[in-house]
């Protein structure tokens, strides 16, 4: 977790706060995250915990009402937060880090053939001509399992699963180092979901791409996870490798979150977490989960530090 150079991506103390009518929303607050090359980290958490905002903060896709945006993001050791917007757009966004936004498969342009839409990043970022870019498209389609003749189709002529593959092809076409996937399977059927996860596993092996997978579907996320990061109320409360995380989550919130997942193959009654996440307008001073925590004690009124537990990091006083 220390030497930033070994990691493909390393995020330090990233903050993204928004201005709202009633105050400042601390959507992403003090986030540290490391991602080694050719690994996949899944970011899980409830809706509204800042998962998607974290992705946007990494890619610097900011809305107009930003109150503060600070911290550092190292990509291959280079601090990309120091770059100006234009350089960032030209050399980093999509070129090195691409993204599959939430529900993107429904956002394909209905009047442009999908092949041309997928070619667009290649033409813009690589300066390729139309025919050359089409070759890249077909290559990218081959990686994601879309038949070549689908390039001439329109979005409405494709099924949901195929559209999602097309979107993933678009994210992969310029062969970025890192792909951020925001809920890539949430609107899909079980079999299609399994297909897409298989595809991502294959791409990860063949192209050696790294992934950040943002999802609230914990069961499906385990299909790709090398590492797991749990977010709660704008902060990452636990990071660790998938094997030990799924075996024994450390943070009380992770523990309760895992207990709420209904199991198909084991007869364990799922539990729910009482209460609601705190408002990000005025989050509690100490641990943000304290009000819902079954292990709460005196110290929880103070901000917990990130505590190293072997190769895992947990933000909870219990492990001091």
């Amino acid at each position: 977790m220390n030497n930033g150079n070994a990691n493909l991506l390393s995020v330090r103390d990233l903050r993204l706060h928004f201005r709202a009518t009633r105050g400042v929303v601390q959507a992403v607050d003090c986030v540290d995250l490391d991602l080694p090359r050719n690994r996949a980290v899944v970011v899980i958490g409830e809706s509204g915990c800042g998962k998607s905002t974290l992705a946007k903060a990494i890619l610097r896709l900011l809305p107009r009402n930003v109150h503060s945006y600070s911290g550092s993001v190292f990509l291959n050791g280079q601090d990309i937060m120091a770059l100006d917007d234009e350089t960032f757009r030209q050399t980093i966004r999509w070129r090195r880090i691409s993204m599959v936004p939430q529900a993107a498969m429904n956002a394909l342009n209905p009047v442009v053939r999908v092949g041309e839409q997928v070619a667009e990043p290649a033409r813009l970022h690589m300066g390729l001509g139309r025919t050359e870019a089409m070759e890249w498209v077909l290559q990218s389609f081959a990686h994601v399992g879309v038949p070549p003749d689908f390039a001439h189709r329109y979005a409405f002529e494709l099924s949901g699963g195929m559209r999602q593959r097309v979107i993933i092809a678009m994210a992969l076409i310029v062969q970025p180092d890192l792909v951020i996937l925001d809920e890539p399977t949430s609107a899909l059927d079980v079999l299609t979901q399994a297909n897409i996860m298989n595809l991502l596993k294959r791409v990860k092996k063949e192209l050696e791409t790294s992934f950040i997978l943002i999802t609230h579907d914990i069961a499906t996320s385990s299909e790709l996870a090398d590492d797991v990061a749990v977010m709660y109320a704008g902060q990452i409360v636990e990071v660790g490798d998938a094997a030990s995380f799924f075996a024994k989550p450390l943070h009380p919130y992770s523990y309760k979150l895992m207990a709420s997942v209904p199991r198909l193959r084991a007869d364990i009654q799922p539990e729910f977490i009482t209460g609601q996440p705190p408002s990000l307008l005025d989050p509690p001073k100490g641990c943000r989960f304290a009000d819902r925590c079954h292990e709460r004690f005196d110290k929880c009124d103070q901000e917990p530090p990130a505590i190293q537990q072997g190769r895992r990091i947990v933000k909870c006083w219990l492990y001091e």
Partner: protein
Amino acid sequence: MTDATTSATPETVAAAPAGSGNGRPDLLSIQDLHVWYELKRWGFMHAGFVRAVDGVSFDVKHGEALACVGESGCGKTSLMKAILGLNRPTSGDILFEGRSLSMLRGNEMRWYRTKVGYVQQDPFGALPTFMDVRRILTEPLIINGIRDPEERQRRIGKALDEVKLTPHAEFLPKFPHMLSGGQQQRVVIARAMILEPMLLVADEPVSMLDASVRVEILRLLRGLQVSHDLAVIYITHDLSTVRYFSDHIFVMYAGQIVEMARVDDLLGNPQHPYTLALLAASSDPDANNALVMREVPPGEPPSLVTPPEGCRFHPRCPHAQAGLCDVEVPDPFRTDEAHRVACWMYDPEGRHTGGADAVS
């Protein structure tokens, strides 16, 4: 309508297993239901039918929770709309306490609608944004002629108690956007329950909610079902929640029921190749998942305009046998007391050479 594909005989599927017990007739009985939509070319020429529901039969007993599982486009929603009386069945019948839905007129239909509650998938979309909770819950009472404000107040209070939105005063003046997703879904459930229905149709009631809230809502529905002797049809694509919520389950594929059983029976001893594929594709959180590829049957669900001959799953089925599966439609064979499978491998006459052993 002349139609040759209705080979699923109602008796074989619908024959209730011993245990309809208490002498009451089934609450709801779906008999060989077909919901077809006509396709038109240039606005007036006939261009075929979309066979969204094609020969479905099942019964719902009083107080029973029944889950309907299938992929999108398999006809779940068309079936549900027919049950709610929003779609007119092309053929077949829906009996509610022995009375055919197609025979209900005017006030009788209104009576039926008070007996059947509906919980929508997307709570925010289902609640009018310009009404506060009080107004949302008052509306069905006004429509159904409850004029006494005190009576309405009492009923609203009771409904809010049931969905555990207390204290009432805090929630009544709130508009939907001021509530969390879980609270919105509670309001939807309260609205469905306020006329004290006998049947609740829940269309993916938790798919838009977070994992932690999901369980809470499912428990709430389960509690209501038990305490009110309420029958619930729970439509979902998520097999993992079914176990904790339903008694019986049926799996739909391309407009037809392929397997029907008690929940533990279906999850413990799945038989139809499609059910097996669904189960194999669903994951439990486990780090080992990342190491292996999931097995998924090739291809995609068939067009409902020109469904394949014979068993509709045969083009994707690893056990399909030429000359049988692609020609004849399998009957729902009874493999156990309450377990029915529409697959030739379970044919008691053994016409499928692979036999059921090939699966396990």
